[in-house]
């Protein structure tokens, strides 16, 4: 601790920080641009000028930039000093000489850090009499909009994009007052994290292009805290709505999960909510049915048939449990294939054992060694890849300790460590973006990767530190793992390989036997894979079998396209064997096409729900808005109504969701205590408003229909109000719908919600983690069968290949794939083999071929994947039409008729 004196007030503050973060944490209004809590200080913008004094007698002092000045004991400084304050205002005037006066038509307006800082310094009138410099803007792809004239050259964009996220194609060009931030040539930004530019940019140079198509000011959005639905990490997001459509996703800070950044799938995946093929009305056998008729029909159906329910890894715990309750636990099935269910079951057994720690993303960022076995996190859990990119800097950064380079001194740290990287080992069939950081990469068949893992575990067990023999690669890696203080192993389900999982487990356990506590992170297929797997249900294979045996006549499918998980021909037969199929989902998709009854299900933006992420963390997303179409209802509500109809009650539309979670905890002990993950009440006895107090047009927006303002929607189920009414203040983190503080209209108002700027959010309650609870709660005895070996094609015939599923950030995840922007970025279905195989078959890259997998034939384009082993071909995982493939799979090239 150090004592510092700011404008005669004394404070005890932390050593090792710079004065800007210190002043901000103390609540001083000190403007800044180039500094960012995650990107640290470079001292470029000169906005955070303060005055420091030699001692308390010094009255002249000198102007310094707070962001590059360390805290020191006994320091006297002034924020209010007239000279410092005049300089801050002058600095804004300089920035404004070239900044256009286009706030009224700028997408950043109202959530603009530059606006806030300008007002903060008091600069108002223009003295600069000359023309402003102008730039050409670039097309940067479907996600990010570019408007260079607004640039104030804070360099944050390139520092995030290049330095932090490892991007290569955004840079700064030219010099003096013509510096230009963009690409060498127009084109789609290549980074998976490009959308963060819109949040990192303090003004409107980089903005959300999807928001642009249905633009709304931040103050006009109805917002709720939400959780990303597009991978298993559970990044926290803020979702905003206006006029009944979801307008944007922005980052919601969680110090242990996503921090300040999201991936592009998470930020832009929301577009499916507004998709034209949303199911709008209940439909019974091709006829739109509603009201009493619907209930009578459903009542007839429910009472006359033998129903089973198919759950979903992308539906909430509440919805899955409501289905389970409706059909009974024996009739509830996981809506995933056996191989996926078995993998998850095995992972849950591993996590349940309590042997190995499952790290948060924050902990991943702290790792000093990373071993990735059978995953490409950039595609399967993108935000984790960003954390790994930070983790590889930890070892080199340790060396800066002797130089007294402070932790916040970004440029000096990067300069000092240059391109040195900490240990990162990657084993994955094809080259991945993280390979550029890796100390060692192994590209091969999943079983070879697993064998490498087992050998490594063996080498660790042999204690290489005490071994006098010639060092080998394996022993070197084993040694590095044993030497690391915070080793991390990343694995997961992407390659659909038990051997991979077991190998990762073996490594972690081998380390444990050597008294080394490694973390083991599992990347799972979907946002609620863990939650669904915890519900102990049988997979689709078992359902198919029992459907034939037990005379099932009806199936209720919850928010799931089974054709994504299971063989299409078998599913067709299955659906044909049934009399009735009820499907609840958001969008028209192959499974809804088989339905006799479709019920429009609310999306994550239209209802609340709870998910379990890959580390067992229980998090809720909250309803953002009430769909204007009353036929769109939350699945849990439809299912509860169906339950009520089934047991002969009158459906109650306001059945709250909380009791479902409580019932779940009561009926499955592994969920005990789950309801405590977030507060269920508002602030000061009032609701928390979803709308900012500047929300405009409330009395006018429906005036073309009726001039009197309609009664606003009432929210009986959540701690939120749908309007501006309620208690604002600082809600607890899981319930913070947006960031705002007086003078801070942009997302950087977040500073005010943290205990310390850049650190933990204030007021966080204890969170619930199912994996952490696991070791104390008896785990169900039902055990998934584990495939110990996979079939490997030993003798590749000339035209048959073993197929390897390659996950892609854009396209492999179902819902985000429906979005306009993301669908443009998804790869066209390909068939990748190595050069030798291609030349053996005389196949050129870019040539169209037909591949038969099982009984289906798919048109694909040839690509070269040089690292692929002979006899293996890579195909994109779960990108239509390559869905529902039974893994492990092989494919045979079909000669095309000219």
């Amino acid at each position, binding site marked *: 601790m150090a004592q510092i004196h700011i404008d005669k007030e004394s404070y005890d503050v932390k050593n090792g920080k710079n004065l800007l973060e210190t002043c901000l944490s103390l609540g001083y209004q000190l403007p800044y641009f180039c500094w960012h809590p995650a990107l640290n200080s470079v001292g470029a913008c000169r906005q955070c000028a303060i005055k420091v004094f030699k001692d308390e007698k010094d009255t002249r002092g000198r102007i310094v930039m707070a962001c590059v000045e360390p805290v020191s004991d006994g320091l006297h400084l002034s924020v209010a000093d007239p000279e410092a304050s005049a300089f801050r205002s*002058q600095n804004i005037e*300089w920035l404004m000489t070239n900044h256009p006066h286009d706030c009224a038509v700028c997408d950043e307006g109202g959530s603009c850090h530059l606006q806030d800082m300008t007002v903060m310094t008091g600069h108002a009138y223009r*003295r600069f*009499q000359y023309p402003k410099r102008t730039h050409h803007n670039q097309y940067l792809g479907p996600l990010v909009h570019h408007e260079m004239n607004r640039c104030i*050259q804070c360099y944050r964009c390139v520092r995030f994009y290049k330095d932090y996220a490892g991007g290569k194609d955004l840079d700064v060009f030219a010099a*003096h007052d013509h*510096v230009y931030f963009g690409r060498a040539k127009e084109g789609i930004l290549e980074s998976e994290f490009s959308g963060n530019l819109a949040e990192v940019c303090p003004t409107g140079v980089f903005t959300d292009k999807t928001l642009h198509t249905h633009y709304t000011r931040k103050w006009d959005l109805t917002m709720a805290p939400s959780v990303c639905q597009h991978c298993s990490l559970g990044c926290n997001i803020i979702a905003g709505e206006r006029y009944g459509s979801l307008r944007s996703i922005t980052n919601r800070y969680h110090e242990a999960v996503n921090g300040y950044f999201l991936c592009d799938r998470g930020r832009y995946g929301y577009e499916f909510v507004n998709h034209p093929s949303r199911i709008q009305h209940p439909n019974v056998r091709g006829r739109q049915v509603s009201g009493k008729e619907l209930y009578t029909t459903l009542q007839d159906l429910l009472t006359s048939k033998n129903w089973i329910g198919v759950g979903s890894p992308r539906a909430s715990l509440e919805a899955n449990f409501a289905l389970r309750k409706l059909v009974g636990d024996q009739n509830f099935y996981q809506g995933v294939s056996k191989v996926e269910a078995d993998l998850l079951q095995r992972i849950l057994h591993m996590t349940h054992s309590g042997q190995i720690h499952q790290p948060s993303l924050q902990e991943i960022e702290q790792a000093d060694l990373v071993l990735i076995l059978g995953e490409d996190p950039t595609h399967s859990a993108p935000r984790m890849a960003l954390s790994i990119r930070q983790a590889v800097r930890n070892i080199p950064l340790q060396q800066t300790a002797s130089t007294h380079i402070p932790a916040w001194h970004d*440029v000096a740290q990067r300069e000092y460590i240059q391109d040195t990287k900490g240990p990162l080992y990657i084993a994955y069939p094809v080259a991945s973006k993280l390979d550029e950081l890796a100390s060692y990469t192994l590209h091969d068949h999943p079983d070879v990767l697993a064998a490498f893992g087992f050998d490594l575990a063996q080498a660790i067990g042999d204690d290489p530190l005490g071994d006098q023999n010639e060092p080998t690669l394996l022993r070197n890696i084993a040694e590095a793992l044993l030497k690391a203080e915070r080793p991390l192993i990343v694995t997961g389900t992407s390659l659909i390989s038990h051997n991979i999982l077991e190998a990762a487990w073996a490594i972690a356990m081998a380390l444990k036997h050597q008294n080394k506590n490694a973390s083991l992170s599992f990347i799972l297929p979907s946002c609620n894979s863990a939650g669904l797997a915890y519900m102990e249900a049988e997979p689709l294979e078992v359902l198919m079998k029992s459907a034939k045996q037990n005379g099932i006549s009806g199936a209720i499918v919850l928010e799931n396209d089974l054709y994504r998980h299971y063989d299409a021909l078998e599913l067709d037969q299955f659906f044909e064997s049934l009399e009735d199929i009820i499907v609840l989902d958001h969008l028209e998709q192959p499974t809804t096409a088989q339905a006799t009854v479709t019920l429009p299900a609310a999306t994550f933006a239209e209802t609340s729900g709870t998910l379990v992420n890959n580390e067992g963390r229980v998090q809720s997303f909250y309803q953002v808005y009430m769909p204007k179409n009353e036929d769109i209802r939350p699945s849990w509500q439809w299912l509860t109504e169906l339950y009520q109809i089934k047991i002969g009650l009158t459906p109650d539309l306001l059945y709250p969701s909380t009791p479902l979670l409580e019932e779940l905890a009561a009926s499955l002990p592994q969920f005990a205590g789950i309801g405590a993950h977030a507060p269920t009440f508002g602030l000061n006895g009032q609701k928390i408003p979803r709308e900012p107090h500047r929300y405009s047009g409330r009395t006018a927006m429906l005036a073309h229909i009726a001039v009197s303002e309609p009664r606003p929607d009432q929210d009986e189920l959540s701690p939120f109000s749908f309007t501006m009414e309620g208690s604002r203040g600082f809600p607890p983190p899981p319930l913070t719908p947006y960031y705002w503080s007086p003078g801070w209209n942009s997302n950087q108002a977040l500073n005010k919600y943290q205990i310390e700027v850049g650190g933990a959010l204030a007021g966080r309650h204890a969170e619930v983690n199912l994996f952490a609870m696991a070791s104390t709660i008896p785990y169900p005895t039902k055990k998934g069968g584990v495939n110990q070996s996979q079939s490997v094609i030993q003798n590749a015939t000339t035209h048959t290949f073993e197929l390897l599923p390659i996950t892609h950030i854009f396209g492999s995840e179902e819902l985000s794939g429906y979005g306009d922007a993301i669908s443009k970025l998804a790869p066209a279905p390909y068939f990748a083999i190595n050069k030798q195989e291609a030349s053996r078959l005389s196949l050129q890259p870019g040539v169209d071929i037909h591949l038969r997998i099982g009984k289906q034939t798919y048109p694909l384009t040839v690509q070269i994947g040089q690292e692929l082993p002979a006899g293996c071909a890579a195909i994109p995982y779960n990108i239509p039409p390559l869905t529902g493939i039974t893994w492990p799979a092989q494919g045979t090239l079909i000669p095309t008729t000219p």
Partner: protein
Amino acid sequence: MEKPLTQYINPNRPALHLKEYERVGGYSALRKALTMAPKDITNMVQEADLKGRGGAGFNTGMKWSFVPMDPDIGTKYLIANADEMEPGTFKDRLLMEGNPHQLIEGMIIAAYAIQANVSFIFLRWAYKKAARLLEQAIAEAYDAGYLGRPMGSTGYQLHLHLHTGVGRYICGEETALLNALEGKRATPRLKPPFPQISGLFGRPTIVNNVETLCNVPHIVNNGPDWFKALSNSGDAGTKLYGVSGRVKTPGIWELPLGTPMDQLLEDHAGGMQDGYRFRGALPGGASTDFLVTEHLKINLDYKSVASAGSRLGTGTMVVLDDRTCPVGFVHNLEHFFAQESCGWCSPCREGLPWTEKILRSIEDGRGTIQDLEILEQHTIQLGPGRTFCALAPGAMEPLQSALKYFREDFESHISQKKCPWR
């Protein structure tokens, strides 16, 4: 009067090649240095009070003494800053074109003193002749075993590379130079850490001006007392003084540090050309404050020039005469500085073009009295500590002193709505 730096430079004869240089005692200082402990050379240079000749005037030996000397520290670098781009400055050019081996010898000794094994000359893009001569000299030094091979019993060896820049003023700033040498954008770095701790590629590095390094062999050969005795002032050694502008014999001379300004102008530069009167001079390149008639008697050493309100800088004077518009003169300079701003920090990037535009508009007869107020504010707000590096504060030095000494000229532009010289 001894002229150690330029004694073997004859503008009418080619530069000394290696054999000639050795014949007049070249590389004897290196041989002597190799018998000394590195630390002793640093102490000797520190004691000689060799001040950095690039403009800042920091004690060279002290700068070297901050380099970590732990034998396990790894790669270290020595760099000659030959990016001479200060307007009005052409002294290093003379040294490199006139006697390249003197620089190379100085560099090897300096590198030995800090135990650096790799060195670079960062040369201004436009110095084509110097580049050619340096390349030849470096090749000769490699052939003769002064470079690239272990020398004598010490086993010490140095590699030297010539790097030609692409013509950016900011590359003369030592940390921007390091970034440029690394292939990065030439923006300055935030200090600390200083290059002595984290310099080129994050390694301990010394960057010295060409003239500074050229002094080193002579100090090693003749000792600190000799070096101090060369001077007329409290600052040791000789200095290359230059004069440009409308004087009768513009040129460059090696003179004792502290030579009086009038002596330089009259005795060496031959006084003003007929029909021109002296109005002022920038004593140390474009980024120093004007000195005017009242200052003609001062001695040109670091302290005396500073107490007259300017800086000795590079010691190369630009003279303003009475038939040249001071506003146009300053506008020209600010145009240069605005263009050469690297674009990293806001005040310099945005403030300098503003001052340039105002000066242009005053010069064109469109200026207002409020413009002078804005210019004056800039001279304060672009001061040291407020900007990231010294470029903008340097750019404000001629402007602030012009506003002080030639204010009536600015005002007459405004009141007459035209430039009185046009």
